[in-house]
């Protein structure tokens, strides 16, 4: 293909090979009024790829709630959403996937995922202050899983640690549906003065256009198209589509960009992620209703003799496109010189809807930028969807057919031996969680990560959540649960939920049953986000997460990862999860139901895979959050931890493990004991109350008719004692839990 002359007209076969559909090629010919050349087809192929155009998802994404009282920048307007946190400050945040690159080259795939998401934040003029990540892998025992896990964690660690932004929270989940196709979702949040916002819009014909940062190489060419394909046995052939990261360059680019943000020389700036120069020039032009003239000979390259389309499509990392106000070029140059970074004038903004690229004095491509982008000429499809047969079948699950194990002590230990329940210490200790000196959760372990806003007492609470097993069982309810869990984690830590970003990881959109999962997820997310007043600020969609194993397509569990932020007015009021003192009273707040559906216990211990999502009622959930907030505001409780994976038992042990105290509790007769201890019904939080506050707490419960149950007391002896049976010593649980994931 590389031998083709770029000024020759392209063929339909070439377009198809680049991933375009026949009707899309026809459409391009109509837009241009002629047959495009190879370079132009390449441009359309990446801009109209799923990854850049959202062509198969945008119809549904538009239905998500995106308005809220604190939104400064809404979904789709800039590189990331922006939430007002008061005092003239704003928080920019976003989550993005880097699944396909990580499946082939876990170290670089994950590293560049971290780099990309942080660039989205600082290109707006915000300094990143915290990161989270949400990772899914196949069965833990598989050698391939271990290779991927090691590589991904090292990649995230090496890039993020060097770049110097703390990792505050995260999740790791294992299920065989991810065997070939891991999910790597990276989140970053940054802080900025509201006035420093840099827009990703080009304007002012005659204004110079600069490329800054790293040189352009042949890495990551057609990465966006690759991300829009199924992962197959032949995927290794796409290895050159994986980019290579350099956190040192990124760190310099961060500092230089933030210095630039303080000047008035910048008209607009956008990072170069998917589809590199092509995407940044066309999106910035289209956003400003202008065109650009770009001279590719001026782009600093790593190799000589790079073809025009290679320069245009390269996804070399750590680069930005900057439109500068004419006359202020030297101000910009000076900053990048200080940081020893490239800063090259490559073109100018022009009038009209034409984006032109030149090489050796020849125009190699001329396209209308508006025709390339989402919201402009990029195609929008409504895909067919169909409820899969398993959905109804899962609902037939009957708890009475599951016998209660005789030895529940053994079940408790069994659960802590499961990689999904066990400590993720091996993972998170490889991430710098304290650089930036803003992590309030290090010494006050809390359900959500909390970052101090330095210079104030405020904190940004954040959580990434998605139990994809629930989403698989019931996409609509499972996704509503994911939003609820994120909100619960923030509330339990003392925060008020503000907004979410989402990373929608699904199978092939052309597969009606996969698309049904996507549609259900959007519906559930909309409902929950409206209930919790947390608008969706953006994120990304990753389709084609599946493998073809012996000719059969197996999609991953549908995984709409939710990244939520919330605000703590005063971090001194953070609510931590560890037991505080002997004889503190332990209560369960929320409803208790006979339910073990989709629990780790049911799936791993009983090996029953087919059951619906666990019990969930969104109104009860919302009420629970208000009650917990009220307890925290009135200082009635001294610890709080939600019941999530592994149920109440696991939550109690976690509260004990982070304190070295134990507990003595009683179960109730009306509920199956296995369900009471290990069921994962939603809307439950364990709280502890000091003896001094007991009367006030009980009074509050009574006055407001709050659903709650007295469980027992915190004990000095560090054991987990349930109905007078010793379920194990806290030290032993630590020992088990810390050694399951240990590579």
């Amino acid at each position, binding site marked *: 293909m590389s031998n083709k002359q770029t000024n020759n007209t392209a063929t339909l076969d070439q377009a198809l090979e680049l991933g375009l559909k026949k009707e899309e090629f026809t459409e391009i010919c109509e837009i241009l009024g002629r047959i495009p050349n190879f370079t132009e087809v390449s441009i359309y192929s990446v801009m109209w790829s799923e990854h850049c155009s959202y062509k198969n998802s945008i119809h549904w994404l538009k239905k998500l709630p995106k308005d809220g009282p604190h939104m400064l920048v809404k979904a789709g307007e800039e590189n990331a959403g922006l939430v007002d946190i008061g005092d003239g400050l704003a928080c920019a945040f976003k989550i993005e996937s880097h699944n396909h690159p990580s499946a082939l080259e876990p170290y670089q795939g994950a590293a560049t995922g971290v780099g990309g998401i942080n660039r989205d934040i600082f290109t707006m003029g915000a300094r990143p202050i915290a990161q989270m990540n949400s990772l899914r892998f196949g069965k833990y025992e598989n050698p391939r899983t271990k290779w991927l896990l090691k590589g991904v964690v090292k990649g995230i660690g090496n890039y993020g640690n060097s*770049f110097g932004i703390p990792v505050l929270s995260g999740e790791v989940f294992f299920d065989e549906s991810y065997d070939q196709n891991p999910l790597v979702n990276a989140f970053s949040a940054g802080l900025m003065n509201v006035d420093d916002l840099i827009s990703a819009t080009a304007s002012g014909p005659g204004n110079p256009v600069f490329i800054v940062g790293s040189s352009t190489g042949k890495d990551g060419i057609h990465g966006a198209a690759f991300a829009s394909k199924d992962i197959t046995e032949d995927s290794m052939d796409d290895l050159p589509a994986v980019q290579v990261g350099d956190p*040192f360059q990124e760190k310099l680019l961060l500092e230089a960009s933030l210095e630039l943000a303080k000047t008035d020389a910048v008209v607009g700036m956008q990072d170069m992620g998917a589809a590199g120069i092509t995407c940044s020039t066309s999106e910035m032009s289209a956003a400003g209703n202008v065109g650009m003239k770009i001279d590719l000979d001026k782009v600093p390259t790593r190799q000589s003799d790079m073809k025009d389309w290679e320069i245009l499509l390269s996804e070399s990392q750590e680069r930005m496109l900057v439109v500068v106000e004419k006359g202020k070029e030297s101000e910009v140059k000076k900053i990048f010189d200080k940081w020893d970074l490239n800063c090259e004038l490559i073109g100018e903004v022009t009038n009209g809807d034409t984006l032109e690229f030149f090489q050796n004095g020849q125009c190699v491509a001329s396209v209308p930028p508006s025709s390339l982008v989402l919201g402009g000429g990029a195609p929008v499809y409504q895909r067919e969807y169909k409820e899969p047969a398993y959905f109804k079948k899962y609902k037939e699950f009957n708890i009475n057919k599951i016998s209660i194990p005789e030895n529940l002590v053994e079940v408790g230990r069994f659960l802590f031996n499961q990689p999904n329940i066990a400590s993720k210490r091996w993972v998170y200790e490889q991430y710098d969680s304290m650089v*930036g000196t803003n992590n309030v959760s290090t010494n006050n372990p809390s359900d959500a990560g909390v970052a101090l806003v330095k210079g104030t007492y405020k904190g940004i609470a954040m959580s990434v959540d998605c139990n994809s097993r629930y989403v698989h069982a019931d996409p609509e309810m499972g996704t509503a649960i994911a939003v609820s869990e994120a909100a619960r984690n923030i509330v339990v830590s003392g925060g008020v939920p503000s907004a979410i970003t989402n990373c929608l990881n699904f199978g092939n959109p052309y597969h009606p049953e996969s698309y049904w999962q996507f549609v259900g997820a959007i519906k559930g997310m909309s409902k929950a986000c409206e209930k919790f007043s947390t608008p969706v600020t953006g994120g990304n969609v990753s389709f084609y997460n599946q493998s073809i194993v012996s000719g059969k397509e197996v999609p991953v569990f549908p995984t709409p990862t939710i990244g939520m932020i919330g605000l703590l007015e005063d971090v001194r009021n953070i609510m931590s999860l560890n037991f505080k003192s002997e004889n503190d009273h332990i209560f369960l707040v929320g409803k208790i139901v006979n339910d073990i559906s989709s629990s780790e216990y049911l799936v791993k211990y009983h090996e029953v895979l087919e059951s619906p999502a666990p019990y969930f009622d969104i109104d009860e959930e919302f009420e629970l959050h208000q009650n917990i907030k009220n307890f925290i505001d009135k200082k009635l409780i001294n610890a709080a931890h939600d019941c999530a994976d592994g149920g109440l038992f696991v939550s109690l042990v976690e509260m004990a493990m982070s304190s070295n105290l134990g507990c003595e509790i009683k179960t109730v007769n009306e509920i199956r004991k296995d369900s009471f201890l290990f069921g994962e019904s939603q809307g439950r939080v364990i709280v502890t109350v000091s003896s001094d506050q007991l009367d006030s707490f009980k009074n509050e419960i009574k006055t407001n008719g709050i659903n709650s149950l007295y469980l027992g007391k915190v004990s000095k002896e560090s054991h987990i004692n349930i109905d007078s049976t010793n379920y194990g010593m806290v030290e032993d649980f630590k020992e088990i839990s810390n050694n399951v994931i240990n590579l």
Partner: protein
Amino acid sequence: MKCGVVTFPGSNCNHDMIYALSKILNQKVVELWHKDHDTQNCELIILPGGFSYGDYLRSGAIARFSPIMKEVVHHANNGGLVLGICNGFQILCEAGLLPGTLLHNNNQKFICKNTFLKPASLKAPICQNLHSNESYKIPIAHGEGRYFASENVIKSLFNNDQVLFQYCDIQGNINQDENPNGSLNNIAGVSNKNQNVMGMMPHPERAVDPLLGNTDGVPLFNSLLNLIAV
């Protein structure tokens, strides 16, 4: 009490150190740039943590050649106070201002967590006001922090009061279980013979803000800064 904090390209704890010194400990701080040829009469020069020049070759190996390091060496040779934290410690070892070297952690992984330190030196500026029977909770975050030197050097370090801190448990017991990276004799920080140049892997600047729930680093800075006041 004029403190200078050096920023190398790739330093990422420089802002944290400046914040700790100026906002929490109320010191006068100037930012020194790696290309500078002047230390602006600072009494204490701090090399902060991070990944100077990317640290792709070997931690601190490139930074020692930067222009500011000539001035730091000059300052040190004149008896001026120098403190290197984490990458700063690695740079001081590479520059020959401190004995020994820092190897990859024995588990070959980056490690970030709270550790406990026991002050070993009686007279070094950063230790002199500390309680030798107490442990201090100071976090680490490094991939190359395993302190190593020849047997003779280690012996002389102890004999000359040059070992600043050793990793210990919360009660102050020094044992291998509490050694996070395989450092010889649990050594977490050392000084030169004159004790005016000090380096340590743990990050005291991460343990000064009461809002973060750990202020065990404050006595270390107070010990060091009191000396400047005298």
